[in-house]
């Protein structure tokens, strides 16, 4: 059996996607307080940036 300690090493594209996911939560809070969908667009832009990084990673592999 393997040891159970959980370490999380993330690649660049994974970090971008985590930030994108967190920005969706920020968007929910922002909209709830009467703001617009600004953070939704930023979250999607960061996500698409992450996909570009993933593509680069796949090409390099």
């Amino acid at each position, binding site marked *: 059996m393997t*040891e159970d300690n959980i370490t999380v090493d*993330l690649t660049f594209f994974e970090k971008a996607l985590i930030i994108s*996911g967190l920005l*969706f939560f920020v968007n*929910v809070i922002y909209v709830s307080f009467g703001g617009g969908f600004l953070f939704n667009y930023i979250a999607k832009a960061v*996500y698409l940036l992450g996909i570009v990084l993933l593509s680069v990673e796949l090409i390099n592999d």
Partner: protein
Amino acid sequence: MFGIELTELLLFGKQVGIALAGAAALWGFVFSRKDFHCSTEKPCVIYDWIAVQLLPLFVSGVGIGSLSYFGLLVTLPASAHEGISYVPTNPEVVRSFEILTPLFLLLLVATVIILFAPGKKSNTFAESITYFYVGTFLISFFISSFPGWREAFDSQQIFYIGHGFHSIFTLGSVIVLDYLFLLSKRAHILKEHIFAVFPTISAAVWFGLAFDFASALFIIGGFAPTTKMLFMQTVIGILIINGVLLSGPLVRKMLAAIKPDGDGLSKTWETIAGLAGVISITSWTTITFVDSFEHLSLSYLEYVGLYLAFIILAYAGHKVVEWYQHRKQAPEFVHN
């Protein structure tokens, strides 16, 4: 009830069914293709076997999708009305029947032929299933791309296309991924073959969501700050973060565990992987479901409560299937 209409329920069934059939066909094709590269080696037999194992999932998808579609054919023309929405209006859905009915019939005929094909354990069957999967994947792709037809390829039609076919790469593929994870429980050699494909499936899921986000650019400015919208944004955040952990650290851990010098996955990691898979499936299903119903009348807390309840139910189901897979006999050619 809760603002759910029969037409929307049937459209949801069609979307989920075809997403599942399309994804099973896509990954069945990928697994079956592998034997073309190594036709005399033992692992090829295993890849062929895995490809055939995806057939029940494909048939379930075709069944759910076709029943829902033929239900729509019977009920929708009588109730068609104009609506203002970013989901296809009923007249647009009815107009798509001209394109979809021949495709559904083709899909059903192909499914019946493969189900009644003789010699399912022969090499000929293993080779022909490659062509079957590529053909049915293309049919499923076109079906899911036309949830409605606006009689022109305007920006909204392009949104329908991107918003439709991404389900094969997202919802359908995460179901296939969890199904394969459960299937791999039968033997160590299956884990070696199945886990090796997980990074590819994960990449397809990420690109699928990117297609959906990109297609939403065609309806930019069309968002309304409704409770439903806020709940969906929450679930998208959860599925992205959960997806990163699942497709990144977890898959890397699984791949390391099945290496010759690896020492297997511990119970804790098995539980985390199972839970992450269930959250992934539940989140994608929830988004597809909530997106399909325009007039859902639930509060944010009710949405979240039901979502959590579905995760618990789905995890219980996952454990039952896991128990069943552990007891199931591994095929003869598989060594533990």
